[in-house]
């Protein structure tokens, strides 16, 4: 995807300096953790490090205390 085709959010991200991006990323990371985001690797069967026996899909929406009460049709 060329820059011109990117969504506005990504264009704005690229307009930042590298250091500004790093600072913003720190904030996003803190928010992610505050919302209960998991630091486990995403299951990726195409990765050479993937171990089906230890890899899990993780808790619903990251936070261990959250449970899925209703799923959509698929």
């Amino acid at each position: 995807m060329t820059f011109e085709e990117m969504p506005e959010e990504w264009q704005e991200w690229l307009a930042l300096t590298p250091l500004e991006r790093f600072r913003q990323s720190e904030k996003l990371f803190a928010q992610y953790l505050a919302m209960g985001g998991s630091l486990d690797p995403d299951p990726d069967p195409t990765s050479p490090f993937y171990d089906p026996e230890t890899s899990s899909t993780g808790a619903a929406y990251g936070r261990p205390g959250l449970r899925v009460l209703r799923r959509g049709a698929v």
Partner: protein
Amino acid sequence: MGGQACVFYGAAQFSKDVDLALLASEENFSRLLAALGELNAKRIAVPRFDPALLARGHAVHFRCHGGEADGLRVDVMTRLRDLPDFEVLWARRATIRDEGGETFELMSVQDLVQAKKTQRERDWPVIDALVEAHYRALGGEPTPERVAFWLAESRTPERLIGLAQRFPAEARAQSSRRPLLSLAFSGASEALREALDAEARAEQAKDRAYWAPLKAELEAFRRAERKGA
């Protein structure tokens, strides 16, 4: 290197881990282990920390416990497929300094692109984004090295067609090394897309072949640890 470097270069918004490419030396390993000790980092997967395994291309995975870095994963490698020795990577690195004087040493974008040419599907859009971000930032200041990088690594038909129009002599010269560049002159975006896809598949096959013996070793290490657990 890895996702954190991608944040600096504009190809990611955040990363859940820290990937370090490390100089393989006894002194450096001592410093690494001391730093990991300060973070109370424990190994979380095979293989164990062993310089000989790192030298063969394995990665060692740790997770920090306690403090600000609690839960953070740190992956360490000293050798990456089709990338030169650490000394060369270090000489080509990018350095960014913040207002407080803290410096961040990043794998160069060219080397990061190469490092991302893996069998993992999710790495390929990152390459696209890395090159596009680089072109967006520096397209107005082309140098022979930058033009060569864009022509060698762009993964968007529209960008390749634009580059061939803008730098026709360089694109022609480089087409012997990257044959799909010849398609860019005719503006054949669909054929380019197919050629780009084939290029990625070939590179993924190379990565799978590189990792096949290492994966077999990882499986043996896992079996041994489960047996010993």
